[in-house]
């Protein structure tokens, strides 16, 4: 059987600059993967390539046995949902309307909202406990609520693969855990998740597999215990770190250390 998602020697970038070099990895169904690496490593570029916004220069991406670029945009939207970084201040829809827009890929010619659409969006709203926010405008949401609403909109697309770009950026620790817990539960129910993450410790806690990128290449692709090795992390991030073990979960825990004298 073919893999769920397969990247074969993918090279990609912008006009005169190649950002990703020869990226290959396979993803199986129900994996929860974090793309980590320093700023400029190519994480967001890889995210855009997976989303299909950025065309590959060479190599290929195979999704469920078919080349990604041969699949229609609507077909992709019915199977792959994404949470790009979004400028919520421009969005004046209320939460209910906004979430229903996630049903767009299933719409007919006139995009009437069907009872099926309503049912699915109501169920997602219930799962993510957004009932009280339904009439609030998206641009008036707090950061944590906004992320939950964005996840809800992606979920009504009924995807098999969820791609996220920094879902915990700008959130306090409580909301970071809240969002990651939601993703963890979704993953347990069968959703395959690939997320760009800056926070190594969240990645370590929640993801079975980390893909560490640097300068557009994969440095290491393994379990958190293997990837979060101080030698690798110090070299890639160009800083000193101490790796400890989380006393509760026994996952590795990364502490950056200043280079100034103590």
């Amino acid at each position: 059987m073919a893999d769920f998602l397969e990247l074969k020697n993918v090279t990609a970038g912008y006009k005169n600059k190649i950002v990703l070099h020869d990226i290959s990895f396979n993803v199986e169904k129900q994996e929860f993967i974090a793309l980590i690496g320093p700023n400029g490593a190519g994480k967001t570029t890889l995210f855009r390539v997976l989303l299909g916004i950025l065309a590959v220069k060479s190599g290929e991406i195979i999704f469920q046995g078919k080349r990604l670029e041969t699949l229609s945009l609507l077909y992709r939207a019915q199977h792959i949902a994404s949470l790009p970084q979004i400028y919520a201040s421009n969005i004046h829809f209320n939460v209910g309307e906004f979430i229903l827009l996630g049903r767009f890929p299933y719409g007919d010619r006139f995009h009437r909202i069907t009872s099926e659409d309503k049912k699915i969006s109501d169920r997602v709203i219930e799962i993510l406990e957004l009932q009280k926010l339904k009439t609030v405008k998206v641009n008036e949401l707090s950061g944590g609520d906004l992320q939950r609403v964005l996840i809800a909109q992606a979920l009504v697309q009924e995807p098999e693969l969820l791609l996220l770009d920094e879902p915990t950026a700008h959130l306090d620790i409580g909301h970071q855990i809240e969002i990651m817990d939601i993703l963890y539960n979704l993953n347990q129910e069968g959703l395959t998740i690939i997320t760009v993450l800056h926070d190594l410790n969240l990645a370590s806690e929640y993801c079975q597999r980390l893909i560490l990128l640097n300068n557009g290449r994969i440095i290491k692709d393994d379990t958190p215990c293997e990837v979060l090795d101080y030698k690798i992390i110090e070299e890639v991030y160009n800083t000193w770190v101490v790796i400890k073990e989380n006393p509760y979960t026994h996952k590795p825990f990364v502490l950056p250390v200043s280079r100034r004298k103590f």
Partner: protein
Amino acid sequence: MRIKLSLLILLTFITVIISLLSGSVKLTPRQVVDALLNPACSSYSMIIWQIRLPRTLIALMVGAGLALSGAILQAILCNPLAEPYTLGISGGASLGVAIFILFGSQWGFFLLPLGGWAGAIFSILIVSLLAYHKGFSTTSLILSGIIINFLFSSLVLFLFAIFKPYEIQKVLLWLMGDLSPADVKLVNIGMVIIIPAIVLSLVSFRIIDVLTLGEEKSYSLGVNVKRQRMILYLLASTIAGTCVALSGMIGFVGLLIPHMVRKFFGYAHKWVLPASIFTGAVFLTLADSLARVLIAPIELPVGVLTALIGSMFLLLVLIFGKEWRIG
């Protein structure tokens, strides 16, 4: 929402009556209705059918078209200050009119709108080609629109330098916006273009909704952003270009009406688009009626009046509005 929209449609009918009543010849509502229903036996049917009704129709159509076009452009460009005229249409249309006066006036001035229309379409094509080259991004569209507008406006000024004074006046009058139909046939031509374009954009309301979420999100919801944005841009600017050809420059309708509408109808384009159509029609028709009677028997150019009302309104909101968000 449904009730609000029905009220708006009712208001449109009332506006039509008011518009038919106003003019230098005083008519009673009864006489107007008589002339409408029994054109053969009413002594006023000539005034109503030949002069007032075409003018009312043009006002309705142009108001609706400009407001709809503005609503679409503001949404697809994710820019609350976008309006039909910022995207090169006005410059192109005035250049078209100026060139027509320079070379084509022997064919008769009643064909002047065709010059405007050709100019508008020409500038729309140039702007879309330029933007297409840059991936049809919002910035590239807005920038190429502004550049083309400047270029064409300066060409118009250049032509002014070699024009005779009465020719300059002709162009200036046209620029001020005037709803008296040069020819009744033009009303029909306008309708043939505008009505299908309105219908096409109305059925795209959901795509427009999605496009306001930004490029990446629309793409991941299955919308081919570049193509849809191009189609909607061409649609909106064709509507606006045709309006300009019919009536000259009528400012502020395309900018102001969509904002007013969103205050009452929210942001879902299912409601914003139809509501903009009716509000724009009501606004321009009322403004035109006012322009006819305000300093009668002289008619104010309606474009001057809408710009006055529009800027006053924005000024008041800016000063007294508690929470005014444009966009």
